């Protein structure tokens, strides 16, 4: 294969989309930098600490999972466990059927995307409405989110205005304020008519059983003010040991994701609403989702489970910026996705084994990561794993290295190649080896300078 799949996708991306993704991710990077480096003198130390906090939690999940389960039950929540996507979807459906519920409003949760919950529920006759503005637009467009934090980073206002018009949400108007106002008006009546609210969780403290949910729009708050049943889908890696960890993580999450000190709405939930409060869920269910996470925990890439889904690595990644999130063919795009998606793919790992190659290993993703995940190291481990597994995708667009190996292990052959290599500059493009041909499609070959160093050394010895 001449190109990797991500390259092929990027090459076919409309100029307008590429610009939208590039501008959006660059803006995200800039606001993150400004927030962290004007507010803190040593933000780097903070993210190292946050990494240690999360690494401790995931390496002690055997202690913390039963502990948090007991706390949640003590607080009045019901706890369910789902080994895979199907079990998670069925657990949600069963809770709804038991209540005779047919209408769900949901806040943004990546794990619900992962298990394709909305699709499953719709087939079962349950109305399942996204309430985050971006996710709502993705839903009415039958599209997929392309960024963890900014799901419609790939869309412009004109496309959105057109889908609003098509879906009966007023005449064409591409003013972002008007679009937002129309969604506000439409969705508030949906919240009030819904039976069940579904959310994810950003963090869950083992110490108190307290879950934390952040949104900027206030949609998860509306879900939890209007409905009587709350279902929280929580990946088992969301646990932290103590409440005090939350102060560190929340301060980093807002700044890393959107350049905010704190996300606008940061909600701490320990159970169903209190008796005196008229609004909110009388029933709370927590569904712990594995869906491949224990495989990741077992692997030598378990550091990726620290991820707090801020999207900073997407924003900074030169490959993401050019290729967009959809190029990654999975729920989690960008550098985090290049690690997580193949790991979560289970038996389909070989099909996703090209993703770890979609990186220049520049290391920017590690530098911006609020929990200091060594993403480049993990990408290298997965490249190796892909090769070991004999995946064709893992070798896509890799030039054959056999000839190079012969030259590099035989000093005489190497010397000869160096002195004669200049010929390549005179070879017309169609006759170049494939690897060089691909290279010259978008740039020139550098002038051949092989052998110069040897010559210089010789001269130096003489004089």
């Amino acid at each position: 294969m001449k190109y990797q799949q991500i390259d092929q996708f990027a090459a076919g991306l409309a100029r307008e989309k590429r610009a939208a993704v590039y501008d959006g991710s660059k803006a995200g990077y800039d606001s993150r930098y400004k927030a962290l480096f004007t507010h803190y003198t040593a933000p780097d130390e903070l993210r190292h600490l946050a990494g240690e906090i999360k690494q401790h939690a995931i390496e002690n999940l055997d202690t913390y999972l039963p502990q948090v389960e007991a706390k949640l039950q003590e607080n009045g929540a019901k706890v369910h466990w789902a080994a895979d996507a199907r079990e998670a979807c069925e657990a949600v459906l069963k809770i709804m059927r038991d209540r005779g519920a047919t209408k769900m409003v949901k806040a943004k949760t990546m794990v619900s995307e992962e298990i394709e919950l909305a699709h499953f529920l719709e087939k079962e006759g349950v109305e399942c409405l996204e309430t985050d503005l971006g996710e709502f637009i993705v839903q009415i467009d039958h599209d997929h989110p392309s960024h963890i934090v900014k799901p419609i980073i790939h869309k412009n206002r004109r496309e959105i205005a057109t889908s609003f018009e098509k879906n009966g949400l007023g005449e064409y108007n591409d003013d972002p304020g008007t679009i937002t106002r129309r969604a506000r008006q439409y969705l508030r009546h949906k919240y009030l008519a819904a039976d069940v609210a579904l959310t994810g969780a950003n963090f869950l403290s083992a110490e108190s059983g307290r879950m934390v949910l952040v949104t900027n729009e206030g949609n998860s708050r509306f879900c939890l003010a209007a409905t009587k049943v709350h279902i929280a889908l929580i990946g088992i890696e969301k646990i932290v040991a103590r409440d005090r960890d939350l102060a560190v993580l929340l301060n980093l999450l807002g700044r890393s994701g959107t350049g905010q000190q704190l996300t606008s709405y940061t909600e701490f939930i320990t159970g169903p609403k209190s008796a005196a409060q008229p609004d909110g869920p009388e029933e709370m269910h927590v569904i712990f989702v594995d869906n491949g996470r224990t495989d990741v925990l077992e692997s030598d890439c378990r550091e990726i489970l620290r991820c707090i889904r801020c999207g900073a690595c997407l924003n900074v990644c030169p490959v993401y910026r050019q290729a967009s999130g959809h190029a990654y063919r999975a729920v989690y795009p960008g550098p985090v996705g290049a690690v997580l998606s193949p790991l979560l793919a289970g038996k389909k790992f070989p099909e996703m084994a090209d993703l770890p190659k979609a990186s220049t290993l520049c290391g920017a993703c590690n530098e911006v990561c609020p929990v200091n995940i060594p993403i480049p190291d993990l990408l290298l481990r997965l490249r190796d794993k892909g090769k070991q597994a004999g995946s064709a995708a893992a070798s896509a667009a890799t030039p054959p290295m056999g000839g190079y190996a012969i030259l590099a292990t035989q000093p005489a052959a190497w010397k000869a190649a160096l002195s004669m290599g200049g010929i390549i500059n005179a070879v017309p493009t169609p006759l170049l080896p494939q690897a060089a041909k691909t290279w010259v499609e978008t740039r020139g070959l550098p002038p051949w300078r092989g052998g110069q160093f040897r010559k210089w050394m010789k001269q130096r010895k003489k004089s």
Partner: protein
Amino acid sequence: MSASSREAILNRVRAALTPLPRRAAYPEFGDNVATMPAFDREADRWTAFSERQKLVNGMPMVGATALATWLRENGHLRGYCDPTLWAELAPAFGPEFSVSTDYDRAQVDEYAFGITRAAGAIAETGSIILNDSTTSRRLGALTPWVHAAVLRRENIYSDVAAAIAALGKDTNIIFCTGPSKTADVEGILIEGVHGPGVQIALLID
């Protein structure tokens, strides 16, 4: 399904972790490690809070009269108020206002403002804190375009870490940092998505 899945998941977690030669230790860190170093924790809390709240496009205000005047000037005449607050606030509001102390879900589009109690605030971030035991109605604080949270001076925490340390037993606590907002459409900031477009912190001594 659930009981066996629980065992299966926990067994897999144990199997994954048991071979580790050692587990990552819980790191040592001070409570205020993530508090902004330049933030003066000894400063007057209301002054510090007001400055920070303005930075997130919130509106600090002092006294019921200021609130009534602002609402009137902006044409927000119909609203909801926590019944236990209304007796104290009513004298500042004239007959042009129509204020209900009983939130009716069917009237969601009619309330231009909601007035409820704040459980506290955070000076470092300009956040107001609502919880179930002090907020009369979650909806009353969320659905109107303007939300005024009535705050007492002694309930302002200096920083996020202090507010988290004091979370306590309430089943639902929310930090509201400025109005509801989105930047989903082309990264342009729009306020008032699902929650209030105007977030007021009203200090009453």
